[in-house]
C-alpha cells in the first residue's frame, strides 16, 4: 500500500511528463483527463459555434434547452446516441464500421503529445510534431473508407474531394512546420528538436514566439500553416467535402446516429489538434504573453491572476444575464440554472486564485486560451466566407501555398545560418 502511494506521489516531484517519468498511473490519469477535457471542449465548441454563428447572423441560436441553450449540446448528444443507426444494405459492412473508428482514433491519438504545459502532456516524444502530423494524416484513410463503403455517389465524391484536399495541403503544411523547426535549432549547440515541449522551450530560450521570429518570415510560415490547417480539417471556406449545397453532406452522407456523431467528434477534435500545433509552433504554446519582457516576479504574480479573473468575468456575465431574464414563472428554472452555472464558474475562478492551483493551472489556461482564439477564428471564417471551388482550392494549395512555403523555408535557413555564411565568406 505504502509503495503504491509512494509510486503515485513520486511523480509529482519529478518535474517530467508522466510518459517521460514512466509512471503508468499518472499516464492513465492524464489520458483520462485529456479525453474528458477534449469531450467537454467539443461539446462546448458545439454550443459556442451555434451561438457565435447565430449572433453573427442576426439571430439568437439555441435558446430553449436550458438558459441560453446551454444544455443544447447535451440534448443533441442524447438524441444522436438514441437515434437509429442505419447502414445502407449495399454498403461494405466492415469498412463502413471501421471508418468512423479510424477517424476518431486518429483525431484523439494526436493529443498524446500535445503540451498543455512543461509537464502537462501525456508524454513527450522525440518526434512529437512528426507524430502529430503522421497520425492526423491517418484520418484521411477513415474518410476515404467512409466514402467508399457507403456505396453511393455523393459520399464517394465527397471522400475523393476531401482526401485530395488533405493530401495536397499536407505538403504546404509540412513545409511551414519545417521552417518553424529550423528556428528551434538557432541555439548555441545548433541542434533543433521535433519534440513539442522542446519547441516551446526553444521559444522561451530565444525569448520570442516564432511568429515574430525573422519578421516577417515566421508570420508568413504561420499564415501558410493557418490556411492549410483550415483546409486540412475540411472547414469553411474549404469545406468542399461537406458542401451541403453540392454533395448534401459529403463522405458522411450515409451515416447517422452514433457513427455520425463520431465523425462530428473527430472533426472538432481535429480542429483543436491542428490549432494546438499552430499554438505550439508559433504562438509559444503554454507561455504567457511577454514572458521575457515582463519577467519580474510582480508580473508573474499579476499574470497568474488572469485565469481566475477570466472565469470571474464569465461568471459575472452569467449573473448579469440572470438579472435580465424575464420575470415570469415559466422562466424560473432557467433563471436558477443560469445563476447556478454562474456560481460554478465563479467558484472555479476563485479556486484559481489559490497559489498552488494557479501555478499548476496557468500553463494549461494560456494554452487553452490560445487554442480557443483559433476556434473563434474557425467560426468567424464559417460565418464570413463563401466556399472555394475544388480547382481553385487545388490551385491555392499547389500554386500559392507550396511555393510560398518553399521560399519561406529557404529564406529561414539562409537567415538562420547568416552568421555562419558571413563567417565563411569573410574569413575563408
Amino acid at each position, binding site marked *: 500500500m505504502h509503495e503504491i502511494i509512494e509510486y503515485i506521489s513520486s511523480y509529482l516531484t519529478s518535474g517530467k511528463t508522466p510518459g517521460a517519468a514512466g509512471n503508468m498511473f499518472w499516464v492513465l490519469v492524464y489520458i483520462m483527463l485529456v479525453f474528458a477535457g477534449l469531450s467537454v471542449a467539443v461539446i462546448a465548441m458545439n454550443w459556442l459555434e451555434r451561438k457565435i454563428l447565430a449572433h453573427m447572423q442576426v439571430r439568437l441560436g439555441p435558446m430553449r434547452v436550458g438558459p441560453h441553450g446551454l444544455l443544447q449540446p447535451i440534448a443533441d448528444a442524447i438524441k444522436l446516441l438514441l437515434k437509429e443507426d442505419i447502414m445502407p444494405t449495399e454498403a461494405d459492412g466492415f469498412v463502413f464500421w471501421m471508418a468512423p473508428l479510424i477517424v476518431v482514433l486518429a483525431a484523439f491519438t494526436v493529443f498524446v503529445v500535445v503540451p498543455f504545459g512543461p509537464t502537462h502532456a501525456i508524454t513527450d516524444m522525440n518526434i512529437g510534431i512528426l507524430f502529430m502530423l503522421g497520425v492526423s*494524416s491517418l484520418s484521411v484513410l477513415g474518410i476515404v473508407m467512409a466514402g467508399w463503403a457507403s456505396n453511393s455517389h455523393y459520399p464517394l465524391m465527397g471522400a475523393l474531394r476531401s482526401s*485530395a484536399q488533405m493530401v495536397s495541403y499536407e505538403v504546404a503544411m509540412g513545409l511551414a512546420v519545417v521552417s518553424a523547426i529550423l528556428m528551434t535549432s538557432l541555439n548555441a549547440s545548433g541542434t533543433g528538436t521535433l519534440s513539442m515541449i522542446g519547441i516551446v522551450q526553444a521559444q522561451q530560450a530565444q525569448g520570442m514566439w516564432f511568429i515574430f521570429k525573422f519578421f516577417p518570415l515566421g508570420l508568413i510560415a504561420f499564415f501558410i500553416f493557418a490556411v492549410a490547417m483550415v483546409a486540412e480539417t475540411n472547414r469553411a471556406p474549404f469545406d468542399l467535402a461537406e458542401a451541403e449545397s453540392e454533395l448534401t453532406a459529403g463522405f458522411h452522407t450515409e451515416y447517422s446516429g452514433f457513427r455520425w456523431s463520431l465523425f462530428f467528434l473527430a472533426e472538432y477534435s481535429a480542429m483543436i489538434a491542428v490549432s494546438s500545433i499552430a499554438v505550439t509552433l508559433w504562438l509559444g504554446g503554454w507561455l504567457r504573453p511577454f514572458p521575457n519582457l515582463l519577467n519580474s516576479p510582480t508580473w508573474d504574480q499579476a499574470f497568474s491572476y488572469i485565469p481566475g479573473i477570466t472565469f470571474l468575468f464569465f461568471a459575472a456575465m452569467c449573473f448579469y444575464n440572470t438579472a435580465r431574464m424575464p420575470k415570469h414563472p415559466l422562466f424560473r428554472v432557467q433563471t436558477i440554472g443560469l445563476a447556478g452555472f454562474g456560481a460554478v464558474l465563479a467558484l472555479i475562478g476563485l479556486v484559481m486564485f489559490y497559489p498552488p492551483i494557479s501555478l499548476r493551472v496557468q500553463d494549461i489556461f494560456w494554452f487553452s486560451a490560445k487554442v480557443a482564439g483559433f476556434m473563434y477564428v474557425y467560426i468567424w471564417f464559417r460565418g464570413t466566407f463563401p466556399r472555394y471551388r475544388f480547382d481553385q482550392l487545388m490551385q491555392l494549395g499547389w500554386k500559392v501555398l507550396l511555393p510560398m512555403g518553399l521560399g519561406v523555408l529557404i529564406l529561414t535557413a539562409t537567415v538562420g545560418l547568416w552568421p555562419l555564411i558571413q563567417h565563411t565568406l569573410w574569413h575563408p
Partner: protein
Amino acid sequence: MAPVATPFFFYLFAGLMLIGGILVITRSNPVHSALALIVTLLAQASIYLMLYAPFVAGVQIILYAGGIMVLFLFVIMLVSIERSMKERQFNSQWVAGIITAVALGGLFIAVYAKGTSIFPHHALSIVEENNTQNVATYLYGQYMFAFEIASLLLLVAIIGAVVMAKKRI
C-alpha cells in the same frame, strides 16, 4: 523509459504484419487488400519504433500509410469494384510465385545462419534522443551522395509519370 514486454509486442506486430501481408494477396476486393496493406505498414512502423528508430517510424506513417496508400485507395475506388472482382485474378503464376518466395526465404535464412557475426547479440544502445539528429547527420554527411542520387531518381520518376500520363504537354 525502459522497454516493457518487448517480446510480446514484437510478436504482436510481426504477427500483424504477416496476417496483413497474407490478406493483401488473398482478398479479392482490392479495397480490402489495400486496407490490409495499411495494417502491415502500420505494424512495420511499430517495429521501427521498437528498434529505437522513431523518425523512420514517423516517416513510415506519414508517407506510406497517410500518403501513398491514400493514393492507392483513390485509384482503386475510381475503378468499378464489382467488375474487377469478377475478373480473373493473376493467380496463374502461383507456381513461380511460390518458388520465388521459397528462394527468398532460403536466402534470408542462409544469411542469418552464416552471418551471425553481422548481428550482434547484445541489444543496441542507441540513445533515443539523438535518433533524428543521427539520421540527419548520416544523410547529409556520410551518405550525401547516395541521398542526392535518390532524389535525382525521384525526379526522373516524376518526369516519367508526367510523360506517361500526359501525351501532350
